[in-house]
């Protein structure tokens, strides 16, 4: 490598290092606004003012869902939890297909009276685990996993598991 090339290489590396450091510091500084949603714990620790719109994310608490129909639009009460805190949510409208107990959701809305989160929109946040229905059934029957209570067990225990055909 001849000197000018080596000099240019060091110059590019130095610029890259400085630029990456600047971006990293910028991201760290704006980390809170890059977060798409608040968890119930964050909400309890630092509640936003009533009426301010924000996003609340967590797991739909098992046994907390109740739906009432007024006319054709359903109104759903449920609680969103992160295992440490829970927030009650009320939503009027049709929920996404994936909505169920134990499902990750992000609700967009604001705090209403009585500490209830009034959602204008509910989005489903699905997990990163992909498996056919019969594998899930087999895990359930073996008592290794219930989707209501969190993500599946360590991937290596099921990603090549043998399943009876047609079960």
């Amino acid at each position, binding site marked *: 490598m001849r000197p000018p*090339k080596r000099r*240019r*290489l060091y110059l*590019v590396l130095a*610029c*890259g290092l400085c*630029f*990456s450091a600047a*971006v990293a510091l910028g*991201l760290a500084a704006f*980390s809170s606004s*890059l*977060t*798409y*949603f*608040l*968890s119930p714990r964050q909400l309890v620790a630092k509640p936003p003012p009533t009426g301010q719109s924000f996003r609340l*994310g967590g797991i739909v608490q098992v046994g907390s869902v109740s739906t009432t129909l007024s006319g054709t639009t359903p109104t759903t009460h449920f609680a969103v939890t992160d295992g440490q805190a829970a927030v009650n949510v009320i939503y009027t409208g049709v929920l*996404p*297909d*994936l909505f169920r107990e134990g499902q990750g959701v*992000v609700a967009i809305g604001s705090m209403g009276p009585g500490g209830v989160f009034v959602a204008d*929109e*509910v*989005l*489903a*946040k*699905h*997990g*990163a*685990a*992909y*498996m*056919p*229905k019969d*594998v*899930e059934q087999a895990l359930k029957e073996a008592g290794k996993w219930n*989707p209501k209570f969190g993500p*599946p067990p*360590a*991937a*290596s225990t*099921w*990603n*090549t*598991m043998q399943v009876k055909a047609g079960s």
Partner: protein
Amino acid sequence: MNEDVLPAGRPARAGGWLHYLANPARFMRVAVPTLPWLSGAALLLCVAGIIWGYQFAPADWQQGDAARIMYVHVPAAWVAMAGYAALAVCSLFSLVWRHPLADIAAEEIGPVGAGFTALCLISGSLWGRPMWGAYWVWDARLTSVLILFFLYLGHIALIRAFDNKSHGYRAAAILALAGAVNLPIIVYSVQWWNTLHQGNTISFTGGSKIYITMLYPLLISTLGFYLAFIAMVVARICAAICERKTASALLAAAEERA
């Protein structure tokens, strides 16, 4: 490989093959005979992966058939990021070693990479509507991939924006290298911040959170997309080299007549 067409000075040290191939004439000698095989393999694997994913892969326990979009969305996303990494490497070679082929490669990678990024965004938003309930959300993963798309577009425009081509190459190379900080942000966005986008399924260190009958079509289609990207870029680089040779031959002929 024909030894007689290869001139002296074969790569001696590790990594030397990049320098070795950086000569356009040598690149053509290697690329032109490889291209039919590359394109054939890409076509075969893409067709196999797409048909397998669309028709024969099992439906997901939670997402049902909509999870089939994974077999085009995930490979497109990986190729989009790998393409940008290749663009950054070419830019480094262009800035530091002034390899002429690196400039041509950077110019030709841009549009193909932008196409794969667009495919990733389109298929992702068609996945988001039935599963999340929204075509688009401004979470860190989606936003950083959109930024990747705009970086590609900026690079495409910048590298062609100057009358003096070498100015365009320098400016675009700096843009590509600066934009490379976006790549780790895309990969780790789902870990660093709360996002609506799910976490990474495939992991090289731990077990991948995907059942084996869904993993195979994903790998086939990923390999197919990668080969398709490489074949398109290599064909475009060869075309660009030929176009340049044609232009300079025509210019020389015109000067001779004058």
